[in-house]
């Protein structure tokens, strides 16, 4: 498509920064605008995920309105909303706005401050629902989940993983490689949250959260903002995007719990390009939970359906130094922090531009995939170096 990532920016990232999330957002946005060689007056589009929302705390660090106002932008187009094909859906829409001529330069951002905002409370602080008669009541789809003690994506994705284990013989030792690979890569990323080495024994002995997922299968809530600028021209071309979902939009009513909406978006990514999965030099695939990355690996055709476990086994295939598919080269959300989707896009662009510093993968990568979302949420971009 006729769209490019012309600039990238990122604020400080930390477990708990105790800084104003709007300030983090502006840091990331100004860096991205400058990186694109643009001025604030050039920005005529603004896009974000999920837009302004107070609950759960820290999930949204800034909405369209505040950023629009603080940066004093004049806009032809803007968008913010949570009902999107994953976090990167906001960037995909920006590509469409640019390609259609509605905007020339769209600033896209995602800010989280969950680390700081949830510092004082447990899970009860983050549960959406309705108060009725003074107490808490689960409504909407949560009406079917909370009564059974399944309030979290950790529980839902655990059940997906368990079914994958059953159908394909996938093991915890295999799944561990997603976490171990992320930790190895995070050691080379100065902004990563967890950089100390992790062994397979560490992984196997840490506490279980929701079997078969242990603590190290879950990403780390953190603070930080990431921004990109989408323009018609730029150093990184948007070759293809995909947003398909061809099943019931539900965690438990989905037709095949060994896969997710990524199945449809992943297949669709190759429908509008002559490139294939074999052409991809580096993959940045969402790991809000480790198993989601395995789903994306299969969905994008880097291995066959059900072969995700075998593909990552031992870690060699996905290693940054010499693997056939360097994966989550910044450490992913498991070790680098839950920047919620945008971190993968930022890293993919950095790798293609050769500016990833110590963690730059060898071989001068030319093609990358950035994918985000789990369950019924999925959106992905195929990127090439100009």
């Amino acid at each position, binding site marked *: 498509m006729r769209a490019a990532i012309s600039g990238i920016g990122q604020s400080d990232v930390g477990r708990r920064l105790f800084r104003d999330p709007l300030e983090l957002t502006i840091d990331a946005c100004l860096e991205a605008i400058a990186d694109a060689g643009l001025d604030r007056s050039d920005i005529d589009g603004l896009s974000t995920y999920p837009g302004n929302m107070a609950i759960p705390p820290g999930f949204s660090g800034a909405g369209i309105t505040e950023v629009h106002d603080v940066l004093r932008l004049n806009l032809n187009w803007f968008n913010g909303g949570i009902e999107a094909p994953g976090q990167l859906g906001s960037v995909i829409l920006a590509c469409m706005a640019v390609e259609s001529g509605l905007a020339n330069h769209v600033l896209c951002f995602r800010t989280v401050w969950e680390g700081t905002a949830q510092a004082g409370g*447990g*899970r*009860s602080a983050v*549960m959406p*629902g*309705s108060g*009725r008669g003074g*107490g*808490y*009541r*689960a*409504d909407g*789809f949560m*009406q*079917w*989940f*909370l*009564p*059974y*003690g*399944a*309030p*979290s994506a950790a*529980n839902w994705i*655990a*059940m*997906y993983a*368990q*079914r994958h284990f*059953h159908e394909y013989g996938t093991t915890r030792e295999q799944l561990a490689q997603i976490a171990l690979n992320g930790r190895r890569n995070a050691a080379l990323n100065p902004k990563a949250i967890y950089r100390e080495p992790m062994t397979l024994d560490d992984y196997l002995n840490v*506490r*279980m*959260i*929701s*079997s*078969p*997922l242990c603590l190290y299968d879950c990403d780390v809530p953190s603070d930080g903002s990431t921004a990109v600028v989408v323009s018609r021209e730029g150093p990184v071309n948007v070759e293809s995007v995909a947003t398909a979902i061809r099943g*019931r939009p539900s965690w*438990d*009513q989905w037709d095949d*719990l060994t896969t997710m909406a990524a199945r449809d978006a992943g297949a669709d990514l190759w429908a509008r390009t002559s490139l294939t999965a074999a052409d991809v030099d580096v993959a940045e695939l969402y790991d809000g939970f480790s198993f989601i990355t395995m789903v994306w690996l299969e969905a994008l055709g880097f291995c066959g359906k059900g072969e995700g476990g075998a593909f990552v086994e031992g870690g060699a295939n996905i290693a940054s130094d010499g693997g056939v598919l360097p994966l989550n080269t910044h450490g992913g959300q498991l070790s680098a922090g839950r920047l919620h989707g945008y971190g993968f896009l930022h890293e993919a662009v950095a790798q293609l531009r050769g500016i990833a510093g110590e963690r730059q993968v060898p071989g001068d990568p030319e093609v990358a995939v950035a994918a985000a979302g789990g369950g019924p949420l999925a959106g992905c971009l195929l990127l090439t170096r100009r």
Partner: protein
Amino acid sequence: MTRYDLPAPDLETEPYWTAAREGRLLIKRCRSCGQPFFYPRPFCPKCWSDDVEWEEASGRATLYTWSVVRQNDLPPWPTRVPYVAAVVDLEEGPRMLTNVEGCEPEDLEAGMALKVAFRQETDEITLPVFRPA
């Protein structure tokens, strides 16, 4: 202490929760195309017909997948961990999220036969759960 496990029955789901209180598991079936479905909704997710009716399920099911939950700090769960969250396939076809009780986690096996049981939480709310058949 605020509980974080009780559902808010609404206009559409009230009959489901009322039946559960009486020890019956309801699903919905489309009278137009015959599709059984869950969650209860006023239209068929397969053919869009609004000619749908309640039907009492047999209560027989098989285990599709599960997770042994070991961490949940939302009351009342801290005193109940570990417990088994599960997705089961009802004999009629629909899939539902539930708990499996009366079974050691290590004895769980995909495809195992289950039978519905009812766990009373309050005077108002009783939950369909499943136990080994």
